[in-house]
């Protein structure tokens, strides 16, 4: 597991390749299920763009770990990738059109499959949590969602939308 330098980036690149390949597979499953449509060159281009933005984000995030600014060091890689994607998509519609070829829901299924596997060992930890915190959790999750939704609703109303 000792990976450094180029080796580390090669590993990240491969995992990202795995991720976009799974999206492609999911897309194909959707086409088979619905009985219409097929993978096009556009889909592949879209996935290539997603791969590229992700990889650039990873590189930036790794480089920022060396910058002596705490905020930049701790800014999540997920955030860097969204910023890279946003900037590139603002610069050129080519990227927007390419990415639009990839079905949003096809991206989500593989992620959640891995998410389920990744928590397999945590299921046992549930015993360590109390039922009280479980009830509190429902209200905590609801609280942030309702709180934000109420303020958004109010704000949108005030701005006449």
């Amino acid at each position, binding site marked *: 597991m000792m990976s450094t330098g180029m080796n580390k980036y090669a590993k990240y690149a491969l*995992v*990202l390749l795995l*991720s*976009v390949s799974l999206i492609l597979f999911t897309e194909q499953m959707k086409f088979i299920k619905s009985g219409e449509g097929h993978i096009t060159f556009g889909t592949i281009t879209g996935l290539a763009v997603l791969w590229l*933005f*992700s990889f650039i*984000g*990873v590189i930036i995030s790794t480089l920022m770990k060396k910058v002596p600014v705490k905020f930049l060091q701790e800014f999540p*890689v*997920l955030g860097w990738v*969204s*910023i*890279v*994607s*946003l900037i*590139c*998509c603002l610069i050129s519609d080519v990227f*927007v059109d390419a*990415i639009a070829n990839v079905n949003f*829901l096809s*991206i*989500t*299924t*593989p*992620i*959640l*499959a*891995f*998410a*389920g*596997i*990744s*928590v*397999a060992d*945590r299921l046992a*930890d*549930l015993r*360590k*949590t109390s039922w*009280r*915190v*479980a*009830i*509190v*959790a*429902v209200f*905590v*999750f609801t*609280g*942030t*969602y*309702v*709180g*934000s*939704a*109420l*303020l*958004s609703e109010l704000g*949108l109303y005030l*701005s006449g939308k």
Partner: protein
Amino acid sequence: MKSKQSFIYLLAFVLIVIAVSEFIGIQAVKVGSVKISLLPLVFAILITMILGLSIFRKGFMKKIYSEANVAFSSKYLIFIMLPLMARYGADVAPRIEEILKVGWVFIIQEIGNLGTILLGLPIAILLGLRREAIGSTLGLGREGELAYISEKYTLDSDEGRGVLSLYIIGTLFGTLFFSIIAPIMHASGFSIEALAMASGVGSASMMTGSSSALIATAPDMEQTINSYAAASQLLTSFLGTYTMVFLAVPLQRFMYKLLVRGDK
């Protein structure tokens, strides 16, 4: 070599899970008068979680859920998620003017995240929790709160146990919870736009749960939903720490004193 072979099992298993989830497709469930659409992603996490339970982890399943494979999944989950984040630029960019025009709404709705304390803390105190309540209601219990609480109280304190419990529950059930609550909230009168903004709660998987459930409810608003959710999520990753330190912590301290006054 052994781990390579077991990785192939993992890959094959994931492909099967994806295929099964996609063939189940979108299923509508009626809860009272609210229609909740369960998406393939919900089935994917349910299948992989249920099969990961220790009673199923025997024989061949043990090879799929091997130590190395589970470790790989949790270590690289964030990388597997990156293409999803890379997609959001394409949703936000075409609507950037519209979003900037209501930019202040995005900023004030961040304050709504204090709802974890406003709603959660009184319930926690009522249930008899004390210092554990501090850890479990400060926020959604993601990495930010985990880091703050462990720095201030260590994880081996009541506060620490509170935030850890919330972290575990959120990791296991967060996506499911938000994909169910989103359509319920819409049925109770909230607009899709407001709920999309609220979806950027700070956890990528919870946001996915909420925003994809909204898309299933209003398919023709996919771009609006994704762009609002992504913009608000990005803002949360910029402002989250500051909201916590400068607003959530003082508010929680004030409310805690008020609520437990005289019974310490």
